[in-house]
């Protein structure tokens, strides 16, 4: 159905035009892996820097002027607002151009767009985060959000994996969560690797081994499409209902606001009605196009 209430979406429009980006300045660049970087940024405009808010799970459209615009989730938590973050894996024109930037560079930002993780549903539950590769980026916003509001949630399990040790992103987060006694951190890599002392196995397999209890639990999953497709059946086997499984979908997007048509599946737009969906909602999609 058409969305009528856009009051919360009217905020943060540059020049009253929904396609005009704000100018943001890159403050710090972290090389996560050989092809993934995290960018710390802030709005150039001081007012916006103070006023800007977003929720975990939302994304932005980031512009490298002259090259193009691309979609990335906001990977920092709304509870830690001295700066904002997004993570980029090199894949094409815009991502490569982003990787060529240095601190101090100016790029564009439109957002925050999309829906967010359903905190009301998640409060009071155990949380199981299942992520692969750069899929940890949208989840880490929610993980830190949950840790900063620790009392509102029960157990927190984080299961994260990558192809090899060199592909593990957000090492500093993994270390912090390893040390944090209030969360359980399980890291794995796909195959044996020299020097790796930790777990070995694909994320869905490790999930099955860890076997978190399904009762009063929500599973939040993000990663490469093939990983998600193998994770859902494992969760079902462990007793999770489709409503208890939550994910954030990746689709090719351009406008980010439900107009250009690209991310359309059936009668929903992933950018406007998502990207956060429960598996129950995804099952209702017109086709297995996810």
């Amino acid at each position: 159905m058409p969305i009528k209430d856009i009051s919360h979406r009217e905020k943060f429009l540059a020049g009253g035009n929904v396609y005009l980006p704000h100018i943001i300045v890159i403050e710090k660049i972290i090389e996560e892996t050989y092809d993934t970087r995290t960018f710390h940024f802030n709005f150039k405009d001081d007012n916006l820097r103070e006023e800007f808010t977003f929720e975990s799970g939302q994304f932005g459209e980031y512009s490298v002027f002259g090259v193009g615009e691309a979609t990335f989730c906001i990977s920092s938590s709304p509870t830690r607002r001295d700066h904002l973050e997004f993570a980029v894996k090199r894949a094409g024109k815009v991502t490569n151009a982003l990787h060529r930037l240095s601190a101090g560079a100016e790029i564009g930002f439109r957002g925050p767009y999309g829906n967010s993780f359903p905190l009301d549903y998640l409060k009071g539950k155990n949380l199981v985060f299942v992520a692969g590769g750069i899929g940890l980026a949208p989840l880490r916003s929610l993980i830190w959000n949950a840790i900063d509001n620790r009392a509102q949630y029960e157990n927190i399990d984080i299961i994260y994996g990558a192809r090899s040790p060199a592909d593990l992103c957000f090492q500093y987060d993994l270390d912090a969560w390893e040390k944090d006694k209030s969360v359980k951190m399980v890291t794995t890599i796909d195959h044996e690797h020299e020097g790796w002392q930790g777990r070995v196995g694909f994320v869905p397999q490790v999930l099955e081994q860890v076997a978190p209890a399904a009762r009063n639990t929500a599973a939040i999953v993000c990663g490469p499409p093939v990983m998600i497709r193998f994770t859902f059946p494992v969760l079902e086997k462990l007793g999770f209902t489709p409503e208890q499984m939550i994910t954030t979908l990746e689709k090719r997007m351009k406008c980010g606001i439900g107009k250009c048509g690209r991310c359309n599946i059936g009668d929903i737009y992933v950018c406007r009605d998502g990207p956060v969906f429960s598996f129950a909602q995804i099952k209702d999609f017109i086709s297995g196009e996810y």
Partner: protein
Amino acid sequence: MSRKRQRTSYDKTMKKIKKKDIGNLLRQWQSDFAVFTPSRKSGTARMEEWDGQDTSFLEWYRNTVIPPKGNIFPNMEEMFSFHKDGEGYHLELPAQDEAKHLIFAIRPCDARALKIIDPVFQDAYEDNYYLTRRENTLLVGLGCTDPHESCFCTSLGISPGESGDVDLMLTDIGEEFSIEEVTEKGKELLARTEGLVEAAQPDELRTRESREAAAKKISRKLDTTNLKERLLSSFEDKEFWEKAAAKCISCGICTFLCPTCYCFDINDETSGGNGTRFRSWDSCSFSVYTKMPAENPREDKWQRVRQKVCHKYEFYPRLFDITACTGCGRCIRLCPVNWDITRVLESVPEETTAQKENRNAN
């Protein structure tokens, strides 16, 4: 969103003008509006700015190739420009096109098409580029007298002879056009237009007859019984869709020339540190439309054909309560392989191929 026209339309003022005096009418309107009329001067029939003289389009005009949507939502338009100096990036919106436009002789199908795509540009976020132009464009409709064999507007609830989606409606009544006011804007324009004569009873009768005759001339019919249900139930019927899509060549003609298609792409053009961001027409028929680094959910042609058909006749109605097709027939007329959506829609099965096979086996 859609204006319901009262059936008692003839209590509104109806005027008329001789066909040979149309030039005078358009010249008058040119003092307030940039007037657009059907024209083949560029090489292809489309709505182009009137030169102030030539009304010969009345002789050949049945419908344009490029629909009037191209005047409100152009093939290519500038979104903003950017330049970089010592202080960083500066963004500038293009000068707002405040000029008032008038599109003369738009057909009821194309006028309805604009109503159909309005929600896209209004919903959730307002698209200023489209909405400003839409607000500033007055539509003067011209009822059809000679529909193409590819037209099927009546099957979608559109009448070729009359329209509630325009501001003024002209009807061919022989040597003259009758002019009917439809909206307040139209009424206001008509009131200050000179050289018009009040229409009399016989004129109103001929208007009604002309409209009925046009509707009767529509030869192509599309049976929409259970269409949405059939499309829903056969969505996963790969065999049906592969057969339906077999001769399609995945160009973008049908979607580009469709008055209700609106998908667009956004790209930057740059020279040094300066440049412009453009938007341009895009098509779900293209194989790269949904391509991502990891996968392409619509890699196969049949998936794209299915998406186009289902989006127009099922998904869009679910979102905005209106079918995204006006039966203008351009897709049928201009497809290089004569892929015909009416034929495909009528062949969408009640039951899937698998269900039929099961039934036959038992």
